[in-house]
């Protein structure tokens, strides 16, 4: 292997993507070529140091206005698409040939078209509420879909403050949205940040009508070890008047390690009587 061929392998060597054959060939060449060995070493050091530059990690963050700007643009774009008129097609020569040449026929045809227009107008007017209602429902569904996406995206972010924003977005989706409910329950059970877990417990209130949500809240209770979150879940169960939670509450009232939690569980049992 020549020096030039060796240098073509440097990039793979630095990124640790060298194949076994090439690695062996590189080692053989390096063993006998001090110049290539030195260069690979020097440049490799710089390659590793590049990782320490600020742009490499999270040191460079966009400003807070970028996200709202994007969502505004997206929303405007969608509105533009929805309200865009259908492209105008030039009238074909066939259509022009259908128009009569004699004035009397022209007047007759115009009157017929006018009457037809009035008829269509009445027909459309007789069933407007239904079609308008379906348009509004469609728009409503799309807005909800967008909010759901934002909430789900934010709940997956690394930063706790972003996840908190995701929780607050969850209030804006339909309470029947099972994906957002699942994401909130996941947050309650597994988010490493107590504040995010607490906010997620609060955000579960609107989902109270769902039996699955109520059951999931009861199941979440024994998984929690932080007294603050345990108390928040107990309060939620009391708000929901969830009698099914009594066995779990009795267990907490007798066995919870935190006296505040024991007391709150006892209070909840009394409330649910």
């Amino acid at each position: 292997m020549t020096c030039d061929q060796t240098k073509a392998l440097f990039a793979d060597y630095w990124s640790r993507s060298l194949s076994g054959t090439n690695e062996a060939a590189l080692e053989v060449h390096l063993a006998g070529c001090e110049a290539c060995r030195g260069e690979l070493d020097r440049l490799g050091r710089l390659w590793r140091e590049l990782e320490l530059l600020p742009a490499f990690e999270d040191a460079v963050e966009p400003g807070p206005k970028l996200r709202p700007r994007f969502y505004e643009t997206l929303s405007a774009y969608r509105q533009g698409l929805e309200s865009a008129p259908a492209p105008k097609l030039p009238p074909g020569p066939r259509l022009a040939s259908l128009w009569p040449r004699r004035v009397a026929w022209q007047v007759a045809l115009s009157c017929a078209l006018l009457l037809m227009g009035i008829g269509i107008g009445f027909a459309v007017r007789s069933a407007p509420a239904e079609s308008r209602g379906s348009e509004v429902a469609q728009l409503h569904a799309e807005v909800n879909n967008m909010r759901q996406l934002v909430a789900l995206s934010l709940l997956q972010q690394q930063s706790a403050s972003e996840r908190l924003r995701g929780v607050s977005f969850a209030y804006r989706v339909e309470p029947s949205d099972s994906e957002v409910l699942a994401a909130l329950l996941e947050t309650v059970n597994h988010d490493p940040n107590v504040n995010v877990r607490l906010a997620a417990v609060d955000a579960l209130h609107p989902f109270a009508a769902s039996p699955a949500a109520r059951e999931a809240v009861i199941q979440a209770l024994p998984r929690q070890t932080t007294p603050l979150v345990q108390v928040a879940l107990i309060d939620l169960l009391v708000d929901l008047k969830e009698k099914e939670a009594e066995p779990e509450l009795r267990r907490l009232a007798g066995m919870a390690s935190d006296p505040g939690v024991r007391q709150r569980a006892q209070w909840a049992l009394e409330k649910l009587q």
Partner: protein
Amino acid sequence: MKTTDNTLMAQVSNGEISKLAMLFERHHRALFRYFVSMNRDRDVAEDLVQDVFFRILRYRTSYDPGKPFTAWMYQIARHASVDQAQKRGGEVVGIAEYAGWHVEPASPAAGPEERASHNQSLGLLQRAMNRLPDDKREILVLSRFQGLKYEQIAEVLGCEVGTVKVRIYRAMRALEQIYLAMEKEKAS
């Protein structure tokens, strides 16, 4: 299971415009860093991120679901960056003017001399990066800062993977030369 970028973009392409929000959440930070690395101006970088997602919307029907979304997005980002540079007449903000740019401090365990030397050396490397010609800086940014694989970089730049590897080697050599020259300047 997490929906892949390619699937999301295919959905956007088919008219599900709102799915772009998911792609924005996944990629806007990385894109922002790419533009800051290339242009060294936060405001311009934010405008460019906005521009990229707008272009994705406009050209959504031209997306080929068989190709990786990331490479396609960086292709668009490059075009946006070039257009922006032309608008500004090639003006580039100097590193000293970019207040938000500072090197990572050395580990707290290091002594004061060691830390100062570490910071100086990284500061020098940062300035050397900024003095690299655009094409060389770009390939290092895509590879080292954006974490793109060589195959993806080849897609973005429209060249062979082998060419990418050779260009990376050349960029590293150029970086070393600039770095050493600056070190000499400093010593004299």
